[in-house]
């Protein structure tokens, strides 16, 4: 599944880097609001569900090679985060749904949580 399809499934809109959203494959999922936890435990290719919206989320996504970021509860990236996401080709999706529902929908579509080695 591509990031764009996942975005549509959670009634979200792509708010940064639409090109990457259409192109990038989702290989798993991770949900956390603690950046250090994501750095420690998310896997390459994961779609990351979070409410954090500052610029460091883009750095973490880039560092871990994540597929993209879904921001929950109607949150939008801060302007510098959106600009950085465009530069670094990290798709960001914004949805009004809360984390619980987003993860439920993605899981029902076959996206699994994984443990990084």
């Amino acid at each position, binding site marked *: 599944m591509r990031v764009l399809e996942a975005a549509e499934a959670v009634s979200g809109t792509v708010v940064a880097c639409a090109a990457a959203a259409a192109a990038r494959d989702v290989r798993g999922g991770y949900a956390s609001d*603690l*950046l*250090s936890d994501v*750095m420690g435990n998310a896997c390459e290719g994961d779609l990351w569900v979070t409410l*954090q*919206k*500052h*610029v*460091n989320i883009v*750095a*973490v996504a*880039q*560092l871990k090679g994540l597929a993209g970021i879904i921001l929950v509860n109607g949150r939008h990236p801060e302007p510098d985060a959106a600009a950085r996401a465009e530069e670094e080709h990290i798709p960001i999706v914004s949805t009004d749904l809360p984390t619980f529902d987003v993860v439920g929908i993605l899981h029902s579509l076959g996206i699994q949580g994984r443990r990084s080695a």
Partner: protein
Amino acid sequence: MFVIDAHLHTCLSPCADLDMHPSALTEAAVRAGLDAVGVCDHNSAENAGAVERAGRTAGLAVIPGMEITSAEEVHILGLMPDMEAALELQSRVYRALPGRNDERAFGMQVVANEQAEVLGFNEHLLAGATTLEVDRVVEAVHSIGGLAVASHVDREGFGIIGQLGMIPAGLPLDALEISRLTALPEARARFAPRDEFPLVCSSDAHEPKDVGKGATWALLERPTIGELNLAFRGQCGRQILGGGRPMEDLALHILDIAQNSIEAGATKIEIELQEEPDADRLVIEIRDNGTGMDQETLSRVRDPFFTTRKTRRVGMGIPLLAEAARAAGGGLEIESEPGKGSRIHATFRYHHIDRAPVGDIETTLMVLLACRPELVIRFMHKVGEETFELDARELRRAGINPATPEGLAAVRQVIRRGEAEIR
């Protein structure tokens, strides 16, 4: 009295501008009229020594410190008494800080000297979190004689309330820091309605142009950690007078102009601030009995590069207020005559998108009265139909003497009540 911006980053912080090297920082701080700065890079104090040396040359006091990221991703400033203590804190933080920096993801971490020469690159993951929980961070700072201040409590990301939902009961923080997002009166109501914590304002600057855009006014003997500690506790006559966003908040424009008046020998100052939302108008008028200005000075006084000041390094008061008024669809008039004093009258369109916020009047009045307790000051603040007036002579008649710590505390209560009533 000291103007302090206690939270500045250098080029060592991965998110900071590479132009923010130690001497650029101190130059920007001197330009902004600061007396002291705190150097608080993320999880490291490696550039603080160079800033301290650059500051010594520039006549700027430098408090070494760091902005520590707790395990819960809460940012805590550790303001340290000296470099030795800062480096001791740094070694404890490094032991608890996993990972290596990836420059491509987070940015460069440049260790530089005071000659703007690159000495090397820090390899720790300074953008990362330590394994120390927030109470252990505070404990570590205190055990080495530092002060622990919760960073930007009004910001969700990395702010203590955003990350933890509250300030944990019993956490012995020395103060809370308010970012440039929030004006001090609003911050007091939200974070310290019963003066639970002292509040400090700082810029959290990551590039030279932002240095001094947030600042705290503190009544101290010297800009040291020991003195700041007394000020946070309100002991021995030391106290935090207030803070805000210099060059932005109208209250701080007023303070700057009034300080001009004092330097021009004024013994009497009258300040009027009228907010008339219904008429879409905001008016500031400041009258003094200082030396006044002759025609030539008057014609040059709007030029930002002109100043009659010898003592302080900035003399931008009138040009900046004129610019702020013009940007908000208003203007500025000056009347002045040598020997008779000056009258400055600025108007703004109240609802104009570029009209600067009023900010904290309490700071303006507290700083003026703390510096010049004998000043005959009359202040009038009108919001719609409501008016708050403060007259220094009436305070004296009521037995309140701003020259004493008790008197100053009483003045603060009068201002706070008065300002609350008209809002």
